[in-house]
């Protein structure tokens, strides 16, 4: 099995990390740099990523994509106001945002995939062996579409995305591994483009998230923008030059503002000089100037903090530690406001730029079985509901519910002979559908024609450990699974993702099919081994008939495994998995009973 790495796919910078003999470490590039600027430039010489891409920002602004994370999983209408600020062109009227680069159109997951591929290659060069899987972090407040888009990006980059993990909780894992976190922890994470607050209880190696909140469109980028707008106004007043609409000058201003902001974290005042074609702009900026501009932005992070505390059922005094994550927490005003809110000095012992990637590496190590005493129990940040009559939302899964979680709901038909039922799933906290985020429409198909109200369809809404929704439906009378057609509102279709994955393979077709065959064979071997072991260990838990079915499926797979038909191998692997599911369930039940047996049942009655 190849290695699994942890990746922080950031708005401004991205990183890759791994665990080296129990210690998480960031993997640097050849020049020793840990951070990969999240910039992808499409040039005549090919795609330039990172530092090389950054150099294209002012030279080639229309083809140089930065802060693409802000566009992930979004529709064109969502980002309308955002687009006024970026020099690249976004195709109008498309449901999913598409960026036009000369003749071609690219989606945000494809752009992100370039970043992921660069990090994958960096790690492979470092290890001298292939990297197969990755844990990729996302803002805790990312919705389903944004998570799915991130997962798609991983697939397009040729990575098996083992887990999508929330950035603040990843940071908590990194602190936890260093034994720097215990009790109730508030993680305040202000990055380049997103803000999260997560409240966790850390106890006995369990990292239980109690509540999370945030804003996926608020970060250091907005600080830069506020300062750049102010500078533009100053230039107009002092030089009589209006730079609005000048894309290259806009980029110069943005980069100048960003640099000045960073210097003002340590200095009280700084000088900014930008040579333009007709004049040179020079200006002294004080920390006070910057703070006046960003005050409302910093203030707007405090509401979500209070809401997270309320949802966790805690007051600020009950928080034992406040941890700062993300480059924007270097801004003194941010630290000050956080300190005022929680009434204690926040700390950032681990590098706020690196801690999320380190935590992702810890999670990767947990998944690989290398760490067994730590477990992250995260939550879903937004309530999940379905549309009911009158455009009102019926909540199925409340926000801040520990994941994985599921809800079951029964549906029936309203018209005689109806064979299809439509469901509209949304995410958000508002009462009306139109005020929430549309996730997808599900069409339950193939219902036998019956009088209205007769069919009973049970739909299971399951949010997995990635925070991504899975939907299953079955007809209760017949027990047969109903087929579902999913139309994601702001996602790329499965077929399109598959096409992008294929397009991204640089190898010849023969290589690809050889690789797919090996993958199918490896998986078949794993499944067969596990099933044989399960039958030995727990075969008695299954009936004779069930054992017979499993043995038959096993034999069929063994036979296919001797051939070279990868589709047949896959098909029979799936079948073997299907027939062993009841046995797997029974074994899991037995494991849970066993865990309880070690505790005395009578100890739990209220005695205090």
């Amino acid at each position, binding site marked *: 099995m190849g290695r699994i790495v942890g990746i922080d796919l950031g708005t401004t910078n991205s990183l890759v990390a791994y665990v080296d003999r129990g210690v998480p470490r960031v993997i640097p590039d050849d020049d020793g740099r840990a951070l990969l600027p999240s910039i992808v430039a499409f040039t005549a010489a090919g795609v330039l990523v990172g530092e090389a891409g950054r150099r294209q920002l002012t030279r080639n602004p229309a083809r140089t994509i930065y802060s693409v994370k802000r566009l992930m999983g979004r529709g064109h209408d969502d980002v309308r106001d955002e687009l006024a600020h970026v020099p690249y062109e976004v195709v109008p009227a498309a449901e999913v945002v598409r960026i036009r680069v000369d003749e071609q159109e690219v989606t945000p997951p494809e752009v992100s995939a370039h970043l992921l591929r660069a990090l994958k290659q960096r790690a492979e060069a470092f290890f001298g062996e292939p990297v197969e899987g990755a844990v990729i972090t996302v803002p805790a407040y990312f919705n389903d579409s944004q998570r799915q888009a991130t997962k798609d990006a991983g697939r397009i980059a040729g990575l098996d995305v083992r*887990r999508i993990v929330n950035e603040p909780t990843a940071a908590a894992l990194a602190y936890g591994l260093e034994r720097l976190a215990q009790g109730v922890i508030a993680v305040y994470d202000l990055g380049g483009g997103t803000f999260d607050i997560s409240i966790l209880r850390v*106890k*006995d190696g*369990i990292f239980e998230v109690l509540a999370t*909140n945030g804003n996926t469109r608020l970060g250091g980028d907005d600080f830069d923008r506020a300062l750049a707008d102010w500078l533009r106004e100053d230039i107009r007043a002092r030089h009589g030059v209006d730079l609005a609409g000048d894309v290259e000058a806009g980029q110069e201003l943005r980069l100048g503002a960003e640099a000045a902001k960073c210097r003002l974290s340590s200095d009280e005042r700084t000088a900014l000089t930008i040579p333009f074609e007709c004049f040179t702009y020079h200006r002294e900026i004080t920390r006070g100037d910057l703070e006046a501009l960003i005050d409302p932005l910093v203030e707007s992070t405090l*509401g979500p903090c209070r*809401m997270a505390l*309320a*949802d966790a059922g805690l007051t600020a005094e009950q928080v034992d530690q406040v941890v700062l994550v993300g480059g924007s927490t270097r801004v003194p005003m941010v630290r000050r406001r956080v300190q005022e809110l929680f009434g204690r000095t926040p700390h950032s012992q681990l590098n706020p730029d690196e801690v999320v990637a380190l935590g992702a590496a810890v999670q990767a190590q*947990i*998944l*690989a*079985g290398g760490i067994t005493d730590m*477990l992250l*129990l995260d939550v879903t940040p937004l*309530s999940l509901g379905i549309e009911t009559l009158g455009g009102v939302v019926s*909540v*199925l899964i409340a926000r801040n*519910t*520990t*994941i*994985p*979680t*599921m*809800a*079951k709901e029964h549906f029936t038909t309203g018209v005689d002979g109806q064979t299809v039922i439509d469901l509209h799933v949304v995410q958000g*906290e*508002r*009462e009306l559908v139109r005020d929430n985020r549309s996730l997808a429409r599900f069409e339950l198909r193939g219902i036998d024609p019956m009088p209205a109200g007769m069919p009973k369809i049970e739909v299971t809404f*399951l949010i*997995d*450990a990635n925070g991504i929704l899975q939907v299953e439906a079955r007809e209760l009378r017949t027990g047969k699974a109903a087929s579902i057609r999913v139309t994601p509102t702001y996602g790329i279709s499965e077929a399109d993702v598959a096409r992008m994955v294929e397009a991204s393979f640089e190898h010849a077709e023969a290589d690809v099919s050889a690789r797919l065959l090996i993958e199918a064979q490896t998986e078949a071997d*794993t*499944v067969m081994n*596990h*099933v044989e072991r399960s039958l030995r260990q727990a075969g008695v838990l299954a009936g004779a008939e069930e054992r017979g079915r499993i043995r038959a499926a096993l034999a069929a797979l063994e036979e296919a495994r001797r051939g070279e038909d990868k589709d047949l191998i896959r098909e029979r*692997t*799936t079948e*073997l*998995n299907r027939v062993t*599911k009841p046995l*797997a*369930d029974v*074994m*899991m039940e037995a*494991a*849970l*009973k*066993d*865990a*309880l047996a*070690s*505790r005395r*049942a009578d*100890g*739990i*009655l*209220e*005695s*205090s």
Partner: protein
Amino acid sequence: MDNYFTVFGLPRKLALDEGELQRRFYDLSRRCHPDFHQGGTAAEQAAALGASARVNRAYRALREPLSRVEYLIALEDGSDASEGARDTPVAPPELLAEMMDVQEALEEARAAGLDANGRAALDAQRQRLCARYNAEYEAIVSRMADWDAAEEGAATRRALLAWFGQRLATRAYLSTVIGDLREALGEDDDRHGAHRRH
């Protein structure tokens, strides 16, 4: 029949040691969380996912007194299984009557805005209702042991459950009115957090 109490190996009682419940939740999570089954087959991973989702749902239902009462009512009614959205609770009629003046004040505020007097009046109402809201919680918690002590199938139990249901409905209604008052007072900043209507 499996229910959320038996998931944790617990008797069907309202007064339980929440610390012990948490320890059991952690123990079960260590066994069934998908993180620890990544090397398994698709069937094993699906089993872990399902078991973990159930343990998480069960813990959420039992970890706090009121959600526990709510779950117990559904369980005793036999209407538990859905695990989904519940019916909107119906507030007792006498409460609706009692809230007439609050509703009138709210209407006025919506129509004509608030002067200092109106604001003070709404604020006083809000404080009174918040106190009542908290009192409902105390009332429910104070009688949990009575339900535990009563015989299975006893009339006392049924009466208590009905009483619990009324208290919960009252509390839900109060929560809505408090939310409306906050909104009218311009404090709806945290609104779609703290006082979501159910």
